[in-house]
Every structure is written in C-alpha cells, then in structure tokens.
C-alpha cells in the first residue's frame, strides 16, 4: 500500500501543493485530474522524489521513501515522464535500462529475462533491434512502459502518457497501463487530461484543484458538479452502452466581438 501523507510543495513563497493526502493499493489504477497548473505534475514528481517536497511524506508498505537511496527508490517507484529524451539506443537496450536499479556490474541473466518479458508484455518483441528514436510516438510510449514494467516497481507514475498520441494509440496505451496495474500488481498513478479515457481505464479518480484534493472516489466521483468546480466548465455525464461518458457543454460566448466594431 502506498500512503501519501500531507504532501506540500512550494516555489519560493508560492504554494503549489498543500497537504495532499491519499492512499492507493497495488493493483489499482488511479487518475489524477485537474486543470493546467493544479499541481498534478508537481504531485507525481514529489512522489518520485524528483522534486523535494517542503513537507509531508510518502510511505510504501509503511516505510517512508525519504530514507531510501536513489537506487533503492528506483526499485520501488518507476516514472515515465511526459517528454522522453530519446537516446540512439535499440528497443531492447532501452527496456533493459529499466533493470538498471537491480544491476550490479551489468545485466544478469535474470535482467535479460525480465526485459524480454516486459518487451513481450507490450507486444514490441518484433522491434527488438530497432532504434527508439526512429519509432512512432505510440511505439515509443510502449517502449517506455516496457521499461517501467522491467523495473518491477510497486508504484508506477505516468505524466500525461497519452498527450501526444493518436486516438487508437491513446486507447492501446491506456489498456496497457491498466494491464500494468491489474496483471503485474503495480499501483499506477496517472496524470491525464482526457476525462473519458480516464473513465474507461482507471479505477479511481483524484480531482486536484489549487494544490489540494477537491474530490476523490470511483466513477461516481466524476460528476457534473465536480467537473464544474475543478475545470470551471459545464458538463454532462451520460451512460452510453453502459459506459459513462463526459460530454462538455461548451457555450461559446463572444467577448471579442466588441473589438471588431
């Protein structure tokens, strides 16, 4: 179980996160929702200790991560950033890199094994020797996921994994992410903008607003009221073929018309 306790972070005197607390279980996929600047990315970079929180703690199975070395932490938490700088490396080497926290001198037979299985888990075994910087965006995202799986973490953090993908790749990636949680028994925390994608693939939802958790819960927490409060926009949540669908109700007002007169 992962417990986030009273996590706060600020840039100078400007607070970004204030006393954020929640828990998640291994095997569940949780979406972090909220508008730009709500502190979503900061939250997951604080959890992964890429940023140092000004107060609060994260506990994995009861022990605080602040006492772990970077390498010990990397065996517990994997992080897939929004933008990947891509080295000119083969797909297999990129996935093998996920074994880095477990290596001593170099990869062992087990490391090669785990990397190979991770590669197969995302269905990229035929691209083993292709170079990652020559792959499509969707394929690159799968390689990054495979690397995270190879890392065998307890917690996987993803920062907008679908933001640069086309429709089909968005769904495929999210399906894989859900697989990570359910099949590999990893706690997954994903920052995501698309409410419908989140509703389709995530088990729980955290609405973040102004650096605090505004609401959280299962699909029942995704209500027109919460969406209005968090995104400042009217929306309707309908059932379509037994799938909840968020339909934004955007009324175009014309504030600029005066300018043209």
């Amino acid at each position, binding site marked *: 179980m992962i417990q986030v306790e009273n996590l706060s972070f600020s840039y100078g005197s400007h607070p970004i996160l204030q006393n954020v607390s929640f828990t998640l279980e291994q095997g569940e996929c949780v979406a972090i929702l909220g508008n730009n600047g709500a502190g979503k990315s900061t939250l997951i970079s604080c959890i*992964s200790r*890429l940023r140092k929180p000004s107060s609060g703690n994260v506990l994995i199975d009861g022990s605080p991560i602040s006492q772990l*070395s*970077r*390498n*010990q*932490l*990397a*065996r517990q*938490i*994997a*992080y897939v*950033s929004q933008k*990947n*700088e*891509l*080295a*000119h*490396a*083969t797909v*297999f*080497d*990129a996935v093998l*890199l*996920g074994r*880095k*926290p477990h*290596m001593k*001198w*170099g*990869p*062992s*037979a*087990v490391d*090669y*094994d785990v990397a*190979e*299985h991770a590669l197969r888990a995302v269905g990229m*075994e035929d691209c*083993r*020797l292709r*170079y990652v910087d020559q792959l499509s965006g969707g394929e690159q995202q799968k390689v990054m996921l495979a690397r995270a799986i190879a*890392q065998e973490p307890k917690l996987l953090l993803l920062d907008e994994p679908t933001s640069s993908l086309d429709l089909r790749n968005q769904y495929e990636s999210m399906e894989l992410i859900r697989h990570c949680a359910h099949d590999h028994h990893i706690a997954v925390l994903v920052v995501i903008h698309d409410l419908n994608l989140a509703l389709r693939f995530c088990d729980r939802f955290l609405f973040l607003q102004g650096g605090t958790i505004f609401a959280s819960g299962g699909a029942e927490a995704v209500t027109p009221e919460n969406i209005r409060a968090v995104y400042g926009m009217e929306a309707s949540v309908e059932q379509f073929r037994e799938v909840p669908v968020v339909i934004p109700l955007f009324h175009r007002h014309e504030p600029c018309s005066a300018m043209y007169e």
Partner: protein
Amino acid sequence: MDLHSEQLHTATPDSYRLFLRRKRLVTLVLLTAVLTAALLSLTSGSAGLSLAELADTLTGGGTAQSRAIVFHVRLPRVAVAVVVGAALALAGCVMQNILRNPLASASTLGVSQGAAFGAALAIIALDAGAQNAANAGTAVTISSPGTVTLCAFLGGLATTAVILGLCRLRSASPSSMILAGVALSSLFSGATTLLQYFADDVQLSAVVYWTFGDLGRPGWSEIRLMYAVTLAALVYFLWNCWNYNALSSGVQTAKSLGVNVDLLSFVSMGLCTLISATAVAFVGIVSFVGLIAPHIVRRFVGSDYRFLLPCSALAGSLLLLLGDLAAKAILPPAILPIGAITSFLGAPLFLLLIFRGEALK
C-alpha cells in the same frame, strides 16, 4: 560485464545476442588496428628496424643501439600516443554524455587551453621545467611532473567549473556552451602568450615548442603517471556505463532509474578534466581527437556506453598512432608536431559533422 552477457538466458533472443557479438567484434577489430599501428610505429623511423630485430630487442636481445632506439625513443612514443589518445577520447565521450552536447571535448570547451596555461605557468613561473642543456630548445625535461600536472589540472578545472556553472545556472544550450569554450580558450591562450612575453629566451623556446604537441617528450615516469590516471578514470567510467546510458535518456529518467545525477556529473567531469589535463601537461595541446573519436565509433556501436567507452578509447589511441605515423612520414627525417597533424585531420571531420547537421541536433 562480459561474463554476464555470456550467460544470456534462453529467453534472450538470438538476434540480440548476435547484435552484442557484432559490437564486440568492432571492439576486437579496433584493438587489432591499434596493435598493428603500434607495431608499424615501432618499426618505422629514420633508423630502420625490421620486425625480427624489433622482436629480438623487445624480448631482451638486440644490439645496444637497437635497445636504445626501441626503449628510449620508439616504445615511449607509442605508449604516449596510446594513452593520450585514449585519455582525450574518453574525456570527450564522457563530457558529451554529461553535458548532453555532441560538440563537447577537452579542446572545444577550453579545458585543454586552461590546462596548457596551468602547465606553462608551472614551467615558467614555478621553474618546474628545467631545460635540457644538451639540446636546448628541442626538449624540456620536466623536473617536477607532479607540479606541472597539478597546475595543469587546476587550469583545466577552472574551465570545467565555468562550464558546469553555465549548465547549472543558465541551462546553457549546446551552442552557447561551445561559445563559452571559445571565449575561455582565447582567454587562456592570451594568458599563455603573456607568460611567454615575460619569459626568457630559453623558457620561451621551451614553452613554444611544448605548445606544438609532441609525443616524444614524456619519459617513463610521466608515462606511468598518465597510465595510472587514465586507467583509474577508465575503471570509474566503465563502472558507470549503465548510468551514462540512463543519462542519455534525460536527467529525469536517469534520476527515476536510481542514478545520482549530480554526483555522477561532478565526479565524471572532474575525472575528464584530470585525464585531459595530464595529457596536455606532458604532451601539449592535441585538438580534435577527443571530439572525433567518439563520433566515429558511434557510427559502429551506437550510443551504448558499454561499448562506446572502450571503443572510443581505442579509436583515440588509433587516431594518435596514425597521426604520429603521418607526422613521421610527411617530411622525413623531421617529425612534424602531432598537434598540427591532428588539427589537419580533425578539422575537416568536424566541418563534415556540422555540414551534415548532426553536431547540434
């Protein structure tokens, strides 16, 4: 490391094993090329020496004359070419990784020039270089190699500190980092010129000759020091090859994979400065080898630092050995300064990189 990869489990596909084997083959080919070039260098020169005579001398036989030639002239020269080439190439390879800048190397960032200034200061102001009376102007026996190395290291370190500060405080782009290197280089070159202005004739000829870059200068004690420093750095670099691999996927990814990026950058840059400063202190400025060698081997082994590091070192050694052979062959019996030769070989390659648009990608 190789032991591990030999034990590949059955699940690892043959294609990847073949791929690794190909890279190992490249390493082996480079090693053979270095050995061949070294042998060629040992047998070539104004006093001709056949392969049989060479073998005889190396195994303890041979005439007094051939022993003198091999052990006092040719073997030190080859040993220096190998270690200096490897040191500069390793420094370039690691700097390119840490600074995330394909144009980084000791000479393009001004580290060599800083080291050269430090060494010149030691020779002139601290009297660390005593002129060899027998052949004044052609050889400087450095009376205290430790002092010269230390001063060269401090000079190089000054540049490294500025470059690292630029990265940290301004997150400098690759091109502005190189521009800073140009500025620092001319600053240190200017300072070295000033030193020369105030030097007496003997010191002046020593320093001018020394800035040419000469592989024949260091004696065995200096060579031992260079090997010790470079081998220690090589061990550290190889120990961290997976950290460098992680770092080439970005700082955030590296951190999330457990790499202590700050410590790694700090120690790596310090070691790069040390090994290039040692090379500069005893041989003078040798440009471009550190920049070009990693780029050449990247074409063959990709950017996997498991292979890139040893191959870069070998390629650097090979380049300097070939440069030395060219230096001997162009105007015999004169041996042209190696610094000039590597610049003539390296500059066109550097331009080619820029024209292909690969350098600043």
